[in-house]
């Protein structure tokens, strides 16, 4: 959030994300259930994409695959021009560290670390010293209204405070791609709006790409484009974008798709 990214990440001409014919089966061999059955899409740099879908449709599974945490059963994923399948585990780890900020659906804060230590974690993982970036961390905490909880441990936080800590942690590293899995699920209206405006600014001012998963049409309206994950596929016919994209139109689409 400290100005424009000077140098584009990865291959300059490549999109932020390229996904082709992605399949993912869960369950023991012989009883696999196909969660993702041929997902394809592309996401440009600086784009704000929202993915919506019924509960259990595979949204979280998709994000895990995109972050290189999980292996697809079939299909192709490219992050900033690098194909995940062709990378060794260590390279995937490095790519994730440099390129991906992740807001987990279940927060996953480290229980023994304070709020500010949790937020500083991605910097420490990169080998930077969080105490040298105290201002950046403090600014994020202030923006999300948890500056007075900086020294609290996760179990001393409310659900919404945990969620905001988790979002601050995803933003602190200023990675070019942000994957946010239901970041507003536990938040009040006001805090939810603050988060969404932050995400919008990240795209507009820093040119970073944001992939948001949500159930909330109001949140979806902040995106450049909204896609719907139904029956294991992203339906290109029901993609919403441009001026027609409002909370109302998203709501209507959800109803139409029986979501």
């Amino acid at each position, binding site marked *: 959030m400290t100005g424009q990214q000077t140098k584009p990440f990865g291959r300059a001409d490549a999109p932020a994300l390229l996904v082709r014919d992605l399949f993912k089966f869960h369950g023991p061999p012989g009883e696999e259930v196909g969660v993702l059955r041929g997902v394809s899409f592309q996401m440009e740099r600086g784009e704000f994409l929202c993915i919506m879908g019924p509960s259990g449709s595979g949204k979280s599974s998709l994000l895990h695959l995109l972050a290189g945490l999980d292996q697809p059963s079939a299909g192709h994923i490219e992050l900033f021009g690098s194909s995940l399948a062709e990378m060794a585990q260590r390279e995937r780890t490095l790519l994730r560290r440099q390129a991906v900020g992740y807001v987990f659906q279940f927060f*996953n804060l480290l*229980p023994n670390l304070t709020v500010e230590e949790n937020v500083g974690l991605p910097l420490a993982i990169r080998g930077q010293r969080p105490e040298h970036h105290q201002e950046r961390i403090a600014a994020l905490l202030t923006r999300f209204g948890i500056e007075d909880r900086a020294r609290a441990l996760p179990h001393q936080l409310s659900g919404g405070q945990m969620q905001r800590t988790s979002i601050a942690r995803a933003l602190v590293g200023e990675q070019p791609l942000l994957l946010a899995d239901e970041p507003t699920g536990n938040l009040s209206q006001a805090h939810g709006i603050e988060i969404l405006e932050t995400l919008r600014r990240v795209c507009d001012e820093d040119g970073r790409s944001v992939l948001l998963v949500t159930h909330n049409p109001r949140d979806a309206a902040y995106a450049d484009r909204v896609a719907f994950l139904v029956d294991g596929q992203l339906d290109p016919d029901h993609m919403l974008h441009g001026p027609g994209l409002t909370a109302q139109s998203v709501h209507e689409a959800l109803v139409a798709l029986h979501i």
Partner: protein
Amino acid sequence: MALAEIVAWASLRRRPARTLFSILGVAVGIAVVVSIAVVDRTTLQNARPDRAQGWRADLEVRPAPGVVDPAAELAAIVGVERFTEVLQGEAQLQGVDDGGQPAGERAQARLIGLEPAAFDMGLLRLRSGTALGAANGGAPEVLLGAPLADRLGLDSGDAVWLAPPARAARVDCVEGALVQQRPAGPGPTPTEFRVSGVLEAEGAGRIASGELLVVDVSAARALLAGQFQPSSFWLARDERVAPEKLQERLVANFAVDLRRGAIVGQQADEVAFRNGVRLAGLLSLALGLYVIFHTLSMSLVERAREMATLQALGASRGQIARIVFSEALVIAALAGAVGLGLGLLLAKAMLEAGISSLGLTGDVRGQFDVPWDEVVPLVLAGVGIALLGSVAPLLRARENEAVPLLRGEDPGAASGKPGRGARSFHVATLLLVVAALPMAFFLALPLVGEAERQLIGLVLLGLGVLALLIGTPLLVPGPVAVLARSLADPLRRLSPFSGLLAARSISLSPTRVAASAAAVALVTAAFVGLRGMTSSLALENENWVQEGVMGKLWVYQLGGVPWQPLAQELRAQGLVQAVEPLDARLSAPFRVVGLPVAELAQAGLLAERPDLAARLSSAPSLVISRRLASQKNLRVGDQVAIATPSSGVVPFEVLAIDDRHGYLNRPHERAYAFAASTHMARLFCLETERSDTLALVLAPGADPLAVAEATKTYLRERGLGSDKTGFGLASDIATHERNDITRDFVVFDVILLLALLLAGTGVLNGLLLAAMERAKELGVLRALGADFGQIARSVLLESAFIGIVGGTLGLLLGLGLVPVVVSSLRVLSGLDLPQPGLQAIYLLGPALALGISVLGGLYPLWRMGRTDPVRAVRTG
């Protein structure tokens, strides 16, 4: 701070209980081994004060008659590292002035001829000058004892004249008479020698108080020509060969004089005891490291989600490994330091209490020798294995296993069904415990003496049992789960809700439960094994007490009274059957008492077997005790060569093995033999008519106190005996010997206690981690209305389950272990140990196991009681 420090430090600081108990587990394990090493070293340094002055070679032997080339024979015997021929006699010494004429004081000194090998054996230390060189044309060389050189003002480089003494004054025993030996041949002619050096007053340099001349053996032979020369050899023993074994091999061709004082802790029974202590140490170490390993690895399973989160945030495996490693390093290093301190304190306390690695002895009180060369590697090994234990679980963490954890799945559920990774991890644990560990241990603390080879099979067998014990429940958690399931119903009937909870907890983490139960089983097995061993020793002791002690009365410090009239008098009163005068005795190669055959024929062995009486009288022969027979591996019909002052080496035939005659309690020695007193008088010129010490073989039904009274009266009436005259009651001696075993084995009990503590820590750690893992579940249950008592009952049921399973397994294992322990002890000690039957005391083992397990459950319980249900429910 860098990543590793942030995360590791936070987890250490914010989980003080886990940190503390991990450190404690490792530290106690290390402390046990450190204390054993210190106690053993201190024992060896101090148990016998004469060790420091043990100047002689390990053994002195004299060739038996008919051995043509003793040097070649010795060279061929395994266990003889080096040897030198020794010629001893007297010589005269005088300085030489510049004109080549004798000048100054003339002195007579002990002349010793040695081979150059004597210098390699470390028998001689030079204060100045050089060792004896080869006499290359010039004058032969001589080394002088320090007092002699100082008195005569001689030093290296001086020329001296040596000559045989004008008269070799020497008294010897020839056919029962003391005879002056005079040299034959021409008068002494002096030879010129050059002083090559002066000996330090230590080692062999102390012989004859330093009034000593050392020359090459050939020069000595020339000088001593015509003198009485007993040719003998000094041997340096190969450290790995037990002295008893070496003696056995030597005995065919040599008469052996075993220098007992010079080799503390090397006697067979001492070796057995020390090895026992070491094996007990190995057991505690294995147990300690097993506990450490599991504590640390379980605590990592608990933190699997944290690790998965770090991975998802882009931390590499190397970074995660560094986090875990720094954390483990802090724990292990602190534990190493605490363990070292604790171990030294423990050793100090044990030594203060007189507990040594040779049993209870006052000799070690106030002593403290730390063998840093053993202690440091041991501590490092403990620290190293603790590190390994904490890092190993990481090796199996795979990236795609992270996703379920990130989705909020319970890590406990994942550990309930160990996959291939978990299994190989347990195999690694197993290999570590049963293979790498003993190897490391024995490298640092090798077993004493030659035992290694004989013991190896038994140790392997024991380890196999251990492996089976630890391995089975770990590799196949199924049985534990099945057991838990079959117990679920009875448990539920006992307490519907708590029983259900306990059964669920056990069947969900069978590995953790099995690991705790295995630790408990190990201690129980050790307890049973140890009790079996002491029972066997007690039984063996009892057998001997019945034969060699009961029905006798000892009389000490009579002041040399004629014993025959006393025997007649007491026999006439119907109090005594026979009398054993115990003073006509030798102490090399073992204790041999000369006993009057006619007297012994009144009762006991010789009364039963008149043929023995006849043979004992007719030729030099022995009846030996069972302990002696098994220690020296002697059988009826064997010949024992005994060196005599003037008749050379005389073979004594072993006629029988029997404990009944010849035991002397001051000093106590169960390896003894007797020969006919007539032969002892003839060969060694020993006094056989008067005696200072007697053993009275009481008439059946005679009251020992009455016999003592009668003896006192007899002595008083004749003005014999002294106010020092005392009596030894068989019952007192028996009690003393019985207590000795119990007392000596206190050291094992102490080690066992520590092992028990360790196992308790293991159970505690396991339950504590389980409690933390299930904090949320328990919190939810309490939120749903379960009261603390119900949860407490479930934890106690679980710990009781661990105690019962571990105790039962341990009892069975221990019962299997007893024969192994007893037979290994039999091999090690040369004792004729019987296999003890089932002992009631064995049941104390499982009882202790149950107790320690339930105790181990108390702290986790208390922790749970303090857990705030709200906090538990809120923790994400």
